[in-house]
């Protein structure tokens, strides 16, 4: 039975709040605001809880009374409580000892930011160093580099990405060709769309877009997989066994991706050329003319340079994915955060590397 609402009776010295029936969580919910307001308003008098008609009380009901006591802040008395009700109130009273003040959160010192950034870059370089050392030591630790892990990573990152890469490549080629054909046609230069699109794809877009796909699909997967292993203490188990986690977990993924990225990029390039050819054919340019234009525009270095970039982008994406996984924190959000870091870091690193390579290739006259 629900508790009746308190109907305050008062005189000059005291405010009496009578309760009835069950003081349970439902009664507490119903009476909370009213009771606290009444107690607060009666601060100039002694507060009396009349519980003579209360048949039972749970911890929520007792909390209602003790919070009202706190709102009142002055002298309070409980009258008429039966033994069971009094025991619950006494129990809750012992449980409501004020918690210690929380430790002050240190204010952010913005001057620390550059130092933190340098430390973060240092960590990344240290990880790159660890990977290089692990690569050098592979002959001595060849049993830790398991072929089945490498093939599985190649399958996940490469073979299973083929449909997406082909679809994206064809669509990108199609869109690029269509968007550039319309304005170039005004100047009678529509035949050069083949040169423009094929060069863009081979030199830049092919490797770049494939790396984006890889970052979204595999970088995040690497981070989540290794992050979950870390949370489950599997990495600790490997370390205590004396197994080098970089050799066992990072190298197979890194090598697999470095191998599959050029293959995926070739597929992306050719799918793009196919999409472009479809558009140009639709606008009356025969495929044989398109292929001659492409052959004339693209030199082998454009193609191989793109593949070199693809391999490098793949290594960056895989390394960042694995690094994010290894740096996973604790708690259920940590894996999600690691996956996000892997994708964002992979994309940013790819674009930064692309810019650096553009400058380098230009200097080298490629």
């Amino acid at each position, binding site marked *: 039975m629900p508790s009746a609402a308190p109907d305050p009776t008062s005189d000059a010295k005291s405010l009496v709040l009578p309760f009835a029936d069950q003081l*349970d*969580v*439902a009664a*507490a*919910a*119903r009476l*909370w*605001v009213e009771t*606290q307001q009444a107690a607060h308003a009666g601060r100039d008098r002694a507060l009396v809880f009349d519980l003579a008609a209360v048949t039972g009380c*749970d*911890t*929520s009901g*007792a*909390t*209602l009374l*003790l*919070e009202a006591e706190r709102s009142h802040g002055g002298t309070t008395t409980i009258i008429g409580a039966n033994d*069971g009700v009094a*025991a*619950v109130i006494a*129990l*809750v009273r*012992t*449980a*409501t*000892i004020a*918690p*210690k003040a*929380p430790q002050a959160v240190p204010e952010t010192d913005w001057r620390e930011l550059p130092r933190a950034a340098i430390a973060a870059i240092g960590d990344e370089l240290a990880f790159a160093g660890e990977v290089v050392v692990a690569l050098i030591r592979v002959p001595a630790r060849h049993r830790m580099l398991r072929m089945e892990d490498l093939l599985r990573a190649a399958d996940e990152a490469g073979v299973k990405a083929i449909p997406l890469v082909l679809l994206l490549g064809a669509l990108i080629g199609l869109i690029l060709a269509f968007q550039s054909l319309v304005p170039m046609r005004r100047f009678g230069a529509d035949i050069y769309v083949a040169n423009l699109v094929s060069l863009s794809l081979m030199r830049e877009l092919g490797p770049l877009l494939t790396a984006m796909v890889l970052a979204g699909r595999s970088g995040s997967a690497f981070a989540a997989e290794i992050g979950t292993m870390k949370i489950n203490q599997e990495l600790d188990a490997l370390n205590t066994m004396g197994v080098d986690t970089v050799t066992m977990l990072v190298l197979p993924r890194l090598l697999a991706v470095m191998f599959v990225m050029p293959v995926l990029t070739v597929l992306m390039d050719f799918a793009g050329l196919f999409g472009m050819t479809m558009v140009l054919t639709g606008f009356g340019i025969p495929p044989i003319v398109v292929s001659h234009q492409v052959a004339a525009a693209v030199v082998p270095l454009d193609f191989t340079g793109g593949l070199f970039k693809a391999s490098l982008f793949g290594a960056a994406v895989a390394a960042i994915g694995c690094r994010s996984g290894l740096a996973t924190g*604790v*708690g*259920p*959000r940590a894996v999600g955060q690691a996956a996000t870091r892997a994708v964002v870091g992979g994309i940013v690193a790819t674009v930064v590397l692309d810019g650096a390579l553009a400058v380098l290739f230009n200097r080298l006259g490629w």
Partner: protein
Amino acid sequence: MAPLIQANALAQSFGARTIFRDVSFEVAEGEIFVILGGSGCGKSVLMRQIVGLQPPSSGHVAVFGQDIYAPASDVRSKIGVMFQSGALFGAMTLLENVMLPLEMLSDLPPAARRAVAQVKLGLVGLTDAAGRMPAEISGGMAKRAAIARAMALDPPLLLLDEPSAGLDPITSAGLDRLILDLRHDLGITVVVVTHELASILAIADRCIMLDAAAAGVIATGDPRKLAEDSDNPTVAAFFNRQTLAVAAR
């Protein structure tokens, strides 16, 4: 008075494997009832059947006189459950964990939810840890926080799955004391699934013992009496009687 839990001829099979069959028992109001047995005998499965998470292969379980598997059953809101792992929500602080059922299932205003949740954490001795995340606390604290969350809505029936598992004897004894206090001070009926001998002898009014080999119940009653005079060799072995006898020689 009608029993709070009435289990009648419960059975559970997974494929061809029978975990247990013909398990019947009753739990009275205000009782501390222990489901005990060795690993793999189906203790946790039986508990899941009682709380409505695992429909039995056959048999019937009524809680507060209602079929827990009936579509319109509102019994679940009267049951607090602590799972073996604690099952705390890792993305929430302990206080938020305890506030969650209050937020979802009660009409308490936010300030009241916070106050009630603080009280629940205080009851299990975690007042100062209210703002900490589950990943930052020890196993014993996680179990106590899980009990606080199970008690959030002041349920009259509390089911605890292996509350002492993996804890040191002192922490385990503290939890036993907490269970006894909950029954004594709040009148809560408690069903505990455990195989911790010290806990069983400390808290149980009555128990039911499952055995994997027998695929069912091999003993029921007061655990202290079972420890002293059960003829069943598995029961005797479980209560260390043979071991104690060897030690005494």
